[in-house]
């Protein structure tokens, strides 16, 4: 408790003190501080009422900064000396400045002041050249100071002044040194509270040192100017960006326009025919949980029995399974058989074909699928087909590859825009082998293009790829553009349910 009250008392003192200084400052002053800065602040505290005067003096001093600045920059690099001697020196300083030298300086006026300036300069240069000696001779002995000056003489820089200096140094040993340490200007010596001034001066210097540089332009100004220089460039760039974007837009206008026109011309309404209420109800019933176990529909040709459970995969957000895909592809084939004039002649492999083809040793086994495409089995020749659709199953993803005999190219459609060179390679090889096996002729597919279709409707989620895949097949077998997108998927899911229930693709 006692300690607490003492603290509180001290705290009160802070508030009572005329100048609001940060407590940390004052606190350290209470101890025996060796830092001149702190002692200065203490002094500042005492002579606070002189502040306006000193503040005014700052203005007058500013004109002299170019001279005194180098001194300061040098002194900053020797804080050890300051701390070792600054404290006691500054204590002495008040007395001295009051009495001898600085008073006289004020009396003698300008001439003396300028002389003194030169003297200071000379001293500084001397000390600069003799940095190490100076450090060693930091004691307050007169002889040492003299040595300094003698060396200075030897240098022969300022003969007359140095003579003068030696006399002066004998008189006041400490004062000039301490002043250098503070980085003080010489003309300020006339102040009574020289120390306070020196402190302030230093602060000013520090402040000024940051801003005005050698060229006299503030740093922020410089930065601003240099930044401004880039304005032109930025303007140019943004303009060219704009230009490019507009060009791009114009180019894009050309591309889809064609396609949309084509698509609009060709896409029959039936592609997006909305479901009737009755159909909607039927779909909802088929997807209901009560039908999970029941076989809703059986497809004879493909031997696929669709139960409610299998159909669940056509619910929004579910992954499509192989049964639904294979059945739908079979329905697409049946659709084509019914109306051959309306659709391209296509063959749809099931989802197991590619897996079988790349199964076995070497990653390619034609023999294992050779019998899949006999005329007897298919009822038509694979080689007559304009397009051969090959669903690709990759672990958790559905893609579609197409052997496009009509346009003589291999196409790969991935709703996630993936690419797979292996699929292309395998299918090319397969087609060559297939042609050779079934017709006995060699075909050259070197000229066939391998196209990764890029301007295709893309999947925007993690579950619709199967739906995209069968719709790519649907639209391509109609030989129309892929004029649908993610938004249509919920509709396509329902529509697929309906088509499967009726075993008829429309």
């Amino acid at each position, binding site marked *: 408790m006692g300690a607490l009250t003492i603290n509180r008392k001290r705290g009160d003192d802070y508030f009572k003190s005329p100048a609001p200084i940060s407590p940390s400052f004052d606190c350290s002053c209470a101890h025996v501080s060796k830092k001149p800065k702190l002692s200065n602040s203490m002094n500042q505290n005492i002579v606070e009422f002189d502040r306006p005067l000193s503040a005014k003096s700052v203005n007058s001093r500013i004109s002299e900064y170019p001279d005194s600045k180098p001194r300061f920059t040098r002194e900053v690099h020797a804080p050890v000396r300051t701390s070792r001697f600054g404290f006691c020196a500054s204590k002495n300083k008040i007395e001295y400045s009051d009495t001898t030298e600085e008073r006289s300086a004020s009396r003698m006026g300008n001439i003396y002041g300028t002389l003194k300036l030169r003297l200071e300069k000379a001293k500084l240069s001397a000390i600069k050249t003799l940095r190490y000696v100076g450090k060693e001779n930091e004691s307050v002995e007169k002889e040492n100071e003299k040595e300094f000056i003698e060396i200075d003489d030897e240098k022969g820089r300022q003969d007359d002044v140095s003579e003068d200096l030696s006399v002066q140094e004998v008189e006041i040993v400490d004062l000039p040194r301490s002043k250098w340490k503070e980085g003080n200007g010489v003309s300020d010596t006339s102040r009574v509270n020289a120390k306070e001034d020196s402190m302030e001066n230093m602060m000013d210097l520090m402040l000024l040192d940051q801003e005005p540089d050698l060229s006299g332009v503030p740093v922020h100004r410089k930065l601003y100017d240099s930044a401004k220089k880039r304005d032109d460039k930025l303007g140019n760039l943004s303009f060219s960006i704009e230009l490019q974007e507009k060009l791009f837009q114009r180019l894009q206008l050309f591309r889809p326009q064609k396609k949309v026109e084509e698509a609009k011309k060709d896409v029959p309404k039936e592609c997006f025919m909305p479901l009737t209420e009755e159909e909607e109800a039927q779909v909802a019933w088929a997807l209901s949980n009560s039908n999970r176990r029941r076989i809703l529909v059986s497809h004879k040709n493909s031997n696929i029995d669709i139960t409610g459970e299998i159909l669940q995969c056509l619910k929004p957000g579910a992954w499509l399974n192989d049964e639904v895909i294979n059945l739908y592809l079979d329905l697409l084939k049946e659709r084509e058989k019914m109306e051959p004039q309306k659709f391209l002649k296509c063959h749809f492999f*099931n989802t*197991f074909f590619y897996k079988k083809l790349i199964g076995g040793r070497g990653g390619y086994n034609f023999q294992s699928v050779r019998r899949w495409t006999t005329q007897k089995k298919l009822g038509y020749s694979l080689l007559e087909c304009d397009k051969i659709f090959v669903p690709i199953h990759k672990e*958790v993803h559905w893609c579609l590859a197409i052997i496009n005999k009509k346009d003589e190219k291999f196409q790969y459609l991935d709703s996630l825009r993936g690419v*797979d060179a292996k699929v292309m390679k395998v299918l090319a090889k397969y087609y060559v082998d297939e042609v050779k096996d079934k017709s006995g002729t060699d075909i050259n597919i070197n000229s066939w293009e391998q196209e990764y279709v890029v301007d295709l409707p893309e999947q925007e989620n993690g579950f619709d790829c199967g739906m995209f895949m069968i719709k790519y097949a649907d639209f391509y077998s109609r030989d129309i553009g892929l004029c649908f997108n993610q938004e249509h998927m919920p509709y396509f899911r329902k529509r697929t349910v309906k088509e499967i229930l009726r075993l008829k693709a429309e």
Partner: protein
Amino acid sequence: MAISSKAKRSIGTPNLHPKIMLCMKSQDGDEVHYRVRRDRKIQSLLMAYCKEKNFEYKAMVFVYDGRKLPVKRTPDEIGMEDEDCIDVFMHQSGGGYLASTFE
């Protein structure tokens, strides 16, 4: 290849009934041969195969010459011949995202 023992074990009835040799090919390249009666539902063979291989019957798809096998039919009805192969696949499903990270 342990043909005879397994075949005999699965259907061990008299020689009056003609038999057919069938080969089951699983995805891992494994082949198993069976001798089965021509006039019996193929399903019994498939189930026996799954039991032996520790597959879940419902999770498998049996494909014969590119078509899903009508499991309720007999080899005769399907028109199978000696040494024909049945491909065994797992059911597939897929939705998207994970694949793109795997690729």
